C-alpha cells in the first residue's frame, strides 16, 4: 500500500481484519456445504438485513482497477458502459477470484440502470441466477414509496423461495440490530480518522469498509468493536503536525476494492483524504433508520436515506444529497473536494458541473477528475491533482494556515 498518509501507531486489529479476509473464502465454502446460500449483491438498495435474516451469506460484489477484466466484460456488455460495470461483467464471467465461484445468486437493485443491464447480461451469458429489486425514480412521492414497499415484498418472497427459508420477525430484528451497530461503528471510524491525531487513516477505514463487503457480519462487528476499543488505548502521536497536508474530501462515482489509482496519486502528492460520500464508502452507512422489524419499514428506511445519484431529484434547494455533502465537508473540516467520475458514469458526470458550482460558491476548491481503470491517464491525473493541491496549499497559506 503506497501512501504518504501514515500513522505512527498501528492498530493491531487491522491485521486481524486482514487475516479474517484471507480466511473468508474457505469459511464461505464451508457455509455452502452446510446448505447456506451465498448471495452476491450490487448497487445501493439491496437490504442485507433480508439476506441475513434468511440465513444467506451476503457478499457485496465488485472490484475495480483491473484493465483486463474491463476488456473481457466489454465483449459482452458495451464499451459505452462505465469501467466498473464492464469490469464486474468480466469478473463474473471469468470467476477467477476467490468469491464469484461461490455465488448462488446475484441480487441487484435498479438504482444504477447500467448495473441492472449488467444483471441481464450475466444471467444470459454466464447463467447466473438473478433477483432484481426495482427502485423508484419518484422516490420522494407517496406512490414511489408504496411501489418500493411492494417491490421489496416481492423481492423478499423471491429470496425466501430461493433460500428455502421463511423470514421471521425475530431474525429480521437481529439482522437490523447487527447492521445498525456495524453502521454506527463505521461512522465512528470515519469521524475518528478525520481527527488531527488519529491512529487510523482514511485509507485504512476505506479498507475496513471494503473488508465488510465479504466478512461474516457478526464477526465483522466483533472486529470493529475490538478496533474501537483498541483505538481508545493507543497513545496519541505527538510527533504528528496537523494541518501540513491539504484535507481532501472525495465525492462522485464509487471507488471499488482494488481501484486505488486516484487514492495513490492524491496521497503521493501530499494530499490527506479525510472523508468521502462514495456509495462504496461512507454513504451506504449513513442515515438508515429502520423503525420496525418489517419489510415495509426496511423499504422506508432505505428509501429515506441519502439518495443514490442515479435517482433524479428536481428541487435543488431540498436535495438531501447536496445537503449531506455540505454537512460532511463541514464535519470533516475539508479544505478541498475532488470529484471522481468514472468514464460513462452518467449520474455523477452529469451532476459534476452543478456540484462544482455549488461547492465553489460555498468556498470549497473543487477538482473534477474522470478516470478509467487504464494506466494511460495516470500522469495526466497526477498533473491535475498536483496543480490542484498546490492551489489549495497556497489558499491555506493565504488564509493563515501552515
Amino acid at each position, binding site marked *: 500500500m503506497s501512501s504518504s498518509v501514515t500513522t505512527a501507531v498501528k492498530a493491531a486489529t487491522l491485521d486481524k481484519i486482514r487475516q479474517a479476509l484471507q480466511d473468508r473464502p474457505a469459511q464461505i465454502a464451508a457455509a455452502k456445504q452446510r446448505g447456506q446460500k451465498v448471495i452476491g449483491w450490487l448497487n445501493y438498495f439491496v437490504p442485507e438485513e433480508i439476506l441475513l435474516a434468511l440465513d444467506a451469506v451476503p457478499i457485496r460484489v465488485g472490484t475495480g482497477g483491473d484493465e483486463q477484466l474491463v476488456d473481457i466484460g466489454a465483449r459482452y456488455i458495451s464499451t459505452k458502459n462505465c469501467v466498473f460495470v464492464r469490469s464486474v461483467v468480466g469478473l463474473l464471467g471469468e470467476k477467477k477470484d476467490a468469491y464469484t465461484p461461490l455465488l448462488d445468486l446475484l441480487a441487484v437493485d435498479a438504482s444504477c440502470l447500467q448495473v441492472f443491464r449488467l444483471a441481464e447480461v450475466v444471467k444470459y451469458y454466464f447463467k447466473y441466477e438473478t433477483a432484481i429489486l426495482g427502485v423508484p425514480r419518484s422516490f420522494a412521492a407517496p406512490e414511489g414509496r408504496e411501489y418500493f414497499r411492494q417491490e421489496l415484498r416481492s423481492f423478499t418472497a423471491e429470496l425466501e423461495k430461493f433460500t428455502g427459508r421463511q423470514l421471521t420477525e425475530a431474525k429480521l430484528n437481529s439482522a437490523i440490530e447487527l447492521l445498525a451497530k456495524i453502521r454506527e461503528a463505521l461512522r465512528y471510524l470515519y469521524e475518528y480518522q478525520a481527527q488531527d491525531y488519529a491512529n487510523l487513516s482514511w485509507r485504512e477505514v476505506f479498507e475496513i469498509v471494503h473488508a465488510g463487503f465479504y466478512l461474516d457480519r457478526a464477526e465483522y462487528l466483533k472486529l470493529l468493536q475490538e478496533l474501537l476499543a483498541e483505538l481508545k488505548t493507543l497513545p496519541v502521536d505527538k510527533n504528528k503536525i496537523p494541518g501540513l497536508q491539504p484535507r481532501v474530501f472525495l465525492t462522485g462515482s464509487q471507488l471499488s476494492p482494488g481501484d486505488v489509482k486516484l487514492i495513490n496519486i492524491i496521497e503521493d502528492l501530499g494530499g490527506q483524504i479525510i472523508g468521502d460520500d462514495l456509495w462504496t464508502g461512507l454513504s451506504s452507512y449513513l442515515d438508515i433508520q429502520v423503525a420496525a422489524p418489517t419489510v415495509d419499514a426496511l423499504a422506508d428506511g432505505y428509501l429515506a436515506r441519502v439518495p443514490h445519484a442515479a435517482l433524479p431529484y428536481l428541487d435543488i434547494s431540498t436535495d438531501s444529497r447536496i445537503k449531506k455533502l455540505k454537512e460532511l465537508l463541514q464535519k470533516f473540516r475539508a479544505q478541498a473536494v475532488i470529484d471522481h467520475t468514472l468514464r460513462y458514469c*452518467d449520474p455523477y458526470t452529469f451532476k459534476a458541473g452543478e456540484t462544482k458550482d455549488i461547492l465553489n460558491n460555498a468556498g470549497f476548491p473543487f477538482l473534477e477528475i474522470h478516470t478509467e481503470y487504464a494506466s494511460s491517464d495516470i500522469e495526466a491525473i497526477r498533473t491535475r491533482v498536483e496543480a490542484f493541491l498546490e492551489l489549495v496549499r497556497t489558499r491555506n497559506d493565504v488564509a493563515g494556515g501552515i
Partner: protein
Amino acid sequence: MAVKEKVFQYPETIKADFIQTGGLRFSDGSEVSAEEIWQFLTVEAPRRFPHAFDASANSIGRLSDDVHFFAGLKRAYLTLTMKDRLFKAHDNGVPIVMIQGGQTLDPYYAAGGIPLRPGYVMQWARDVQEGLNLRQLDAAGLEILEKGRRKISIEACNQVAAHAAVANNIVPVDLIAPYLCLRCSDMSFLVETHRYKEDQRPKYLVDFPINQTGKHYTSDYVAEQLRGLVKEIAKLSKKEVTDETLRREIQRQNKARRLAQEIIELWWSAEQPPLNSTDFFSIPFLANDFVGDPEATIQVLTETKKEVAYRVEHGIKGTGVADKAKRVFVCGSCVGPNATSVERAGAVLVGRDDNFSCNSVLVKEDGDPYRNLAEAILSFPYELPTEQRADWTAEMVKKSRADGVLFMYNWGCNYQTSVGRMISDIVKEKTGKPSTFVEVGELGRTEATEQSENRVEAFIEMI
C-alpha cells in the same frame, strides 16, 4: 469555386392530382386546402427551409423522392409547418412539453399540451432561423449541441442538444415532463440538470418501473404518476380534464396506432415494397409523435393506408427501392441509418424495434384510463426485460422477412448498447439472420457521416 447544391422540387405535373386529394384539418379547428399545401411546399418552404430541399447531401431528414405518394407530401407539409404551429400554439397558451421518445402521448394531448420528443425539439430549435442551407443548419445544430456538452457532459448522447435548446430558451418549452427509464438512462439525469438556475420552468417525471412484468402494483404506481402528470399539464393549459377526456384521447390515439399496424402489415405483405424506406419509416413516427397535431396526422395516416393498399394491389413499388432489394431490420437506440444511402446500396428498411414497439400495443378504452395507459406502456415490447424484448424482435424480423439486422446506437447511449450484443445474439439464434453494430459518432451531423454509412453499406454488401 462554390459547389451548387442539387435542389429537390415537387414537379408541376403532379399538382392537379395532388389538389384532388383535399386539404387537412387541424386539432385547433383550422383547415388548410390542398392548394395551400402545394403552394407552401413549392414556393414558401423552399425559401424558408432550403435545407429540406437539398437533394445532394446525406441529409438523414431529406424529403422523399416518391412524389406520387401524396400522403407523403402532406407529411412533409406537417413537418415543415411544425415550427409555425408550435409558436402559434404557445402564443395561444397551449403548453409545449418536452418528453421522451417512444412513450404514449395520450395524457399530454388530453390535458391540453403538445408533447415533443427531443428530436422534434431540436428540429424546432434549428428552424428558428430561416433560410439556412444544410451546412448552415448543421452548424446551427452543432452550436446548440456544444452548449449542452459544455454545460452537462460530452458523454451524453445527442439529446443533450434538445435540453440545451430548452435551457437556453431557443425554443419556448413550458414544461419538461418525460417518462423515465424506458429505453434511456440519460433522460432522468438530463431532466435533473434543469433544476439548477432554471427554477422557473416546471418539471415532472413519470417513472417507468423496470422489472415490471407480472406485478399489478407497477401499474398502480405508473397510473398514479400519470394522474399527477395530467394535473401538472392542466395547471398550465387551464383545461379541465376528466376521465372521459382522457378516454376520448385514448380512442383517438388508438386510431393512429391501429392505422400504423395495418399499414405496416400491408407493406410487409407486398411482394415489392410499396413505399421507400423514408416514407415507410415515417409511419410509426407519425402514429406515435403526431408532429404536434394528432388530428391532421391521423388524416395523413388514413390517406397513407389507402395509397399503400392501392399500390400493393397494383404491384407498384416505392420510388428509389431497388429490384430485389435486401431487407434490413433496424434495432437499437433512437437513431436509424440514412434511408437514402441504404437504398443507394440496394437495400430497403423493413422495420424498427423502437418505433414499432410503441405502436404495437393498443390501450384499453373502457375502465380506468390511467390504469389502462399504465398497463399499455408497461407492456411495450421494447421496454420488456431484454430476453423477452429480443424474442419479440426476432418475431418482427421473421414477419418482415428481413435478410439482416442492424443494431445502431448513438455515441453516449449506455442503456441500449449494453444489451446490443445480447439482443443480436438472441435474434441471430432464433432467426439465423446476420447482424452488425453501428455506433453513430457523428451526432447531429448530416455531413461527414461516412463512418457509419460505410459500415451500413458494408453490411448490406455482405447480406
